[in-house]
């Protein structure tokens, strides 16, 4: 097992109170697995991802542990985590391409990054160039400024830089969202390539786009309002989900071949709750067509069949 997260709870401390963005997350990731993390915006995907690598204020570690390759990560200690960032666990953050320093040449950025890890950039150059080949970027990009590169080129460059140290776990946060479909496909396939070539051991792909996950993920985890709702193989999540939210979500997605005058798709009425003072119990309760008495308590995230976890009182939660 490459990653194990236990009871991880992270809040944002704000003047108005705690934003309860991640509540008791427990799950694990197999070696070589690409796991998709999906859910509506604001459900806590980036919070989960950031907690694993850089749990900085206003985020606050409430409880829980993270174990990577049999080693517990000191996630609550920003400084101690330095040792693991880039080398053991790496992130391609949301909006990374826009965050590139516009006045620095790409090569310079790579050099600085390597130096900060105590690595001689000149010695690392051949490997860097090999990685550029891998993502089909010309070596000349090292002489370019970010503004001279297209979105797709920048995204590939960020991927190369964040995987240069062969981290065990790569977190990719919405890296395809701003790209055109053709570039999206290329970037998604590159993630698979990184895994297949064992540059990284496992990957968490965060996106709100289920169809991308259907293409590349081995498994998918669905979050709702800061809670884990369901986790299973990609086939299971797409074709036979069990959590009411996942079911409604999947059936609401338009597919090529579905026309409104033949099949009228339905959305999910209502909105997700605010996480500053969220409702008690199952946070999907207000929108759930199946809600009943027990839902006033938080449903446990239970393995209802091998490798299929669901947090719902209607789906095995009662037998827990």
């Amino acid at each position, binding site marked *: 097992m490459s990653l194990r997260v236990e009871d991880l709870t992270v809040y944002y401390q704000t003047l108005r109170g705690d934003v309860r963005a991640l509540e008791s997350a427990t799950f694990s990731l197999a070696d070589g697995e690409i796991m998709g993390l999906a859910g509506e915006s604001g459900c806590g995907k980036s919070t989960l991802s950031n907690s694993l690598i850089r749990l900085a204020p206003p985020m606050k570690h409430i409880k829980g542990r993270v174990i990577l390759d049999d080693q517990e990560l000191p996630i609550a200690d920003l400084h101690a985590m330095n040792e693991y960032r880039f080398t053991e666990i790496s992130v391609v953050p949301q909006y990374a391409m826009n965050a590139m320093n516009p006045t620095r040449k790409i090569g310079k950025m790579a050099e600085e990054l390597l130096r900060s890890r105590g690595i001689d950039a000149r010695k690392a150059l051949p490997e860097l160039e090999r990685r550029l080949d891998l993502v089909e970027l010309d070596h000349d990009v090292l002489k370019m400024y970010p503004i001279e590169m297209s979105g797709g080129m920048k995204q590939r460059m960020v991927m190369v830089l964040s995987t240069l140290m062969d981290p065990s776990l790569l977190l990719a946060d919405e890296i395809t969202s701003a790209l055109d479909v053709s570039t999206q496909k290329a970037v998604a396939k590159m993630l698979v390539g990184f895994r297949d070539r064992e540059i990284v051991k496992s990957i968490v792909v965060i996106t709100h786009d289920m169809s991308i996950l259907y293409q590349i993920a081995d498994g998918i985890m669905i979050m709702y309002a800061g809670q884990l709702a369901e986790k299973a193989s990609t086939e299971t999540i797409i074709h036979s989900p069990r959590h009411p939210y996942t079911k409604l979500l999947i059936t609401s*997605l338009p597919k090529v071949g579905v026309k409104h005058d033949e099949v009228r798709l339905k959305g999910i009425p209502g909105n997700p709750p605010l996480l500053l003072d969220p409702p008690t119990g199952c946070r999907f309760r207000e929108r759930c067509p199946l809600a009943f008495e027990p839902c006033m308590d938080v449903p446990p995230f239970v393995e209802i069949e091998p490798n299929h976890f669901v947090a719902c009182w209607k789906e095995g939660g009662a037998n827990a």
Partner: protein
Amino acid sequence: MLKLDNVSKTYRTGTFGGKQLCAVRDVTFEIKDGEVVSLIGESGSGKSTIGKMILRLIAINEGTITFDGLDVGSLKRGDLREYYRKVQGVFQDPFSSYNPIFKADRVFEVMHDHFYRSMRQKEWTAKIHDSLESVGLNPEHVLGKYPHQLSGGQLQRFLIARALLLEIRFLVADEIISMLDASTRIDVLNLLADLKERDLGVLFITHDLSLGYYISEQAAILYRGCIVEMGQTEKIYDNPIHPYTRMLMASVPRLDKKWEDVEIELRAKQGQLSDGCVYFERCPEHQRQTCCRDDRPTLRLAEEGHFVACQRSGKEESS
């Protein structure tokens, strides 16, 4: 109802406007009453430029846009106002249409001031309620709120409701659901489908092929300002012919098929071709043209004493 005839748009760019950027080239299509046409293309292909020209937010360089036969470009004052009574637009980012310090319903007042100045308050309020209900919003829940108190989906429906305050007959919907979450997207999409039942025409601008399929009977594929393929949505999806469309079809992530399967299918379809050039399957995509697939080229004189069976021989390069 709405017709574009050889419409082109060139932007002046560069510090002194010295450079030119051709954003839309020679675009011709028509949208009839009760018809939803999808305009599909990647970013920068010119989709919004077409939408803005229809809404007269920017000028046309060449060609004409007509609405019920009237030249939209030459409308003045009163006529232009009449035009806006019938033709309205909704855009991608719902938040940018609202001023955060005012309540969201303020967007309705603009309509009142422009088009219904003489209408009494009571009547006007009733009209707003009707309009909100027609887009599936409960007026009690959404009126009197600030933009941040409403979701993106609600704000977007607000804007459609605003357009429906007028007796519009045509709506330009520019990427209006790309910023919405999956669970609310479909409601806005269904709403557009319902407008069609009311005989409205809709130009549905999107980069998402599955959305285009769901809602439109006609689709146009745009690349670098040119329409490269156009026609009945099913036909284009089931049998894409232009290499660009084929590339799009092969790239778009789908929930029903994996990329590999789509690629195989597309190749198989190529194999079935009956009427076209025999070399079509193996001809590099950049060389191929629609006609290569439909008509088998006959031997033609390329130069004195030299014959070639290729659609490209003897023809000029088309861009």
